[in-house]
């Protein structure tokens, strides 16, 4: 049960009654009795909330930060229910307004819509639906809660999708499909066609020209049907927040953004993308990933406070990828790589090509340029030390023929996609 403001108002009117008309204990008892009687009558006549039934429908997934609508249908088998309903969600589900006034007639049903704007990636679950059914006097109400489970999966926002059109343009340039006279810069032989003025004379296929009446040129296309294995590190270091233009995001989220852009580009380039999330065991695995499947798989991933198991990862990649592939590891360039991943590189490099992408922290770069007072200079020294470690690691990895993309959070997705395209153009996949 619950009381309303009217009950308080009634008790306050009672103060005047007792003070002016009935200044005695009997007066107080009388006022209290009237109040309790009203409450009792109201509770008796209010529509029951226990027997209400609820059905949910509407959105089950939405991009983080965008608006979606979840519907809640209330079926009332008993007396008319009038009052207020609260559909409670976890705070980061971002319900715009979780309370509505309800008036469900006897035997009828009503549908209410709730707007959600999730502020955080992952599965956002609903808590309880609570109905407060007010009696005819409006003094007291019956109240009860129901569990009506529903989950809205907040997908990774994929902010970097705005980079996709220019990247696809570049891909088409590589392909030679663009309406220009520039020869496709790919490395795989595509077909022969008649020479048009402006074509590079070096691409003339003399042997074919001799057989035909026209001058014939060879066209090239980039390699295709290659395998790209994207590995997302979800261990300890992925939890660190790096402050870019979108505010402080965990490294994991920036890595996801980069992985999404890369997989979108790679599938456009007709490469096969496998996705793997790994910390000290496999957290998610999507073979032959398409973008919608990939975002669904990424949504519930969170960074864990465990150490990244490089040995396990290498074993897993070698077990999975049968043929030669580009393994893109989205991790953080930490000194622990030197002891963890580096000794295992020969085994991996024998079968695959490795590309490591790492989110670098603008805060560290800002610290490195700090001067003026002692605190700033010591901070600069510490930051330079960190940067030097990263340069050292990059050099060590390069010696093993590993490509490294170390970029600020705002630049990483684009930088990784660019590196992929240049590897493709060079035929190194």
């Amino acid at each position: 049960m619950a009381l309303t403001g009217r009950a308080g108002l009634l008790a306050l009117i009672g103060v005047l009654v007792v003070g002016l008309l009935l200044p005695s204990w009997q007066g107080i008892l009388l006022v209290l009795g009237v109040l309790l009687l009203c409450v009792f009558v109201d509770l008796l006549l209010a529509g029951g909330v226990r027997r209400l039934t609820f059905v949910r429908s509407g959105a089950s997934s939405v991009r983080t930060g965008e608006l979606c609508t979840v519907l809640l249908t209330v079926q009332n088998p008993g007396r008319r229910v009038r009052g207020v309903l609260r559909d409670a969600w976890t705070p980061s589900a971002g319900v715009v307004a979780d309370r509505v006034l309800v008036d469900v007639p006897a035997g009828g049903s009503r549908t209410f819509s709730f707007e959600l704007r999730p502020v955080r990636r992952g599965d956002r679950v609903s808590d309880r639906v609570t109905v407060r059914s007010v009696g005819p006097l409006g003094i007291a109400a019956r109240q009860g809660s129901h569990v009506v489970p529903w989950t809205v999966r907040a997908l990774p926002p994929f902010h970097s999708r705005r980079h996709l059109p220019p990247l696809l343009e570049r891909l088409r340039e590589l392909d030679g499909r663009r309406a220009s006279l520039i020869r496709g810069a790919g490395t795989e032989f595509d077909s022969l066609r008649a020479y048009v003025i402006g074509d590079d004379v070096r691409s003339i296929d003399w042997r074919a020209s001799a057989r035909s009446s026209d001058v014939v040129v060879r066209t090239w296309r980039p390699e295709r049907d290659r395998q790209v294995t994207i590995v997302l590190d979800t261990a300890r270091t992925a939890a660190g927040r790096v402050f870019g233009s979108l505010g402080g995001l965990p490294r994991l989220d920036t890595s996801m953004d980069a992985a999404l852009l890369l997989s979108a580009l790679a599938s456009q380039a007709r490469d096969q993308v496998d996705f793997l999330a790994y910390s000290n065991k496999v957290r998610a695995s999507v073979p032959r990933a398409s973008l919608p499947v990939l975002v669904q798989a990424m949504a519930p991933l969170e960074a864990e406070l465990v150490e990244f198991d490089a040995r396990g990862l290498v074993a897993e990649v070698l077990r999975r990828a049968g043929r030669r592939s580009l393994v893109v590891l989205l991790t953080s360039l930490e000194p622990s790589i030197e002891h963890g991943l580096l000794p295992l590189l020969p085994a991996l490099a024998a079968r695959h090509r490795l590309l490591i992408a790492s989110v670098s922290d603008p805060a560290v770069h800002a610290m490195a340029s700090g001067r003026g007072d002692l605190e700033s200079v010591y901070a600069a020294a510490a930051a330079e030390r960190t940067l030097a470690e990263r340069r050292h690691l990059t050099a060590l990895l390069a010696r093993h023929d590993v490509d490294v993309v170390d970029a600020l959070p705002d630049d990483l997705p684009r930088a990784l996609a660019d590196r992929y395209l240049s590897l493709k153009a060079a035929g190194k996949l």
Partner: protein
Amino acid sequence: MTAVSPDAGRIWTAARGPLLIGVIILFAAIVITLLRGGGEGGSLDPRSYRPEGSHAVAALLEQNGVRVELTDDPSAVDGATLFVPRPNLIDPERLEDLSKRAAATVLLAPAPGMRQVEVDTRQPNCPLAAKAGPATLGGLVYNGEERCYDSTLVRTGTVTTIGFGAIFTNRDLDEEGNAALALTLLGQHERLVWYVPSAADRSQQKEFTDLIPDGWKFAAWQLGIAAVVIALWRARRLGRVVTERLPVVVRAAETVEGRARLYRRSHASAHAASVLRQATRDRLAPLLGLPVGEDQTAEVARRTSRSAERVRTLLYSQEPVDDRGLVALADELDAVENEVRNG
């Protein structure tokens, strides 16, 4: 990030106005109190030398062999004269009890009198004060067995009631027969208890609740019930509080900041300097077109206006002597790098 809680400066800026006003009020109060000289506070006080005080009469009594005891707790009044300058501040029952025990009691203007008369020189017209003669009396008029000075001084049994206290004050003691009358009244016995009630005596007055009408007492109870009802209304939640497991917030740069603090605490200026020099050399190498690790002294000296010796010290060997030296070294490394970059 901006801290929203106010710092000391902001608190001072916001508080100095009210504080200044408070200080001015306090100062004005002190000045006014000093100028007014205590007001009524010391009147009829046997220790007070001021015009309205009563030191003169107390001294006269002492000379005549009467012991004057100023007290706020007259438990031992038996056989003594009890003088009460402010009887209205004392619980009537207690006053009656005290006057029964005392050999003689003098009350100054207790309420209620019969009527108000003005203060003037009056004739005694009674045997009680015949010796004293005319005196300055007035104030309230009473009814009693023996009435003197137009009923402004009456005696009933051992209790003498006097309508105005001028005869006891330093100012008026030497007028007319005031001194004689005062000595007659207060010097009846060897001991005089001068009873000035303290604040504690007033607690025997009525409670606050005794003074409000019954109706409002019950209304207050009902108000309490209303408060409980309103509290119940406000306290009832519409469903439980929803909790959520949130990811930890760890800034990625925290380890770097921690390392900086460690450097600073251990005054690792030499180490910090070598790290900064290494970083500068790493950045200079591609600018100079030299492989990393090659000696840059000659090339840097050629491009900047510094001597080779100076450049070598700066880039390779200079140990800062103290913290200030480290700051200077960092600035000079920056200057060299900028010169190479721009020159």
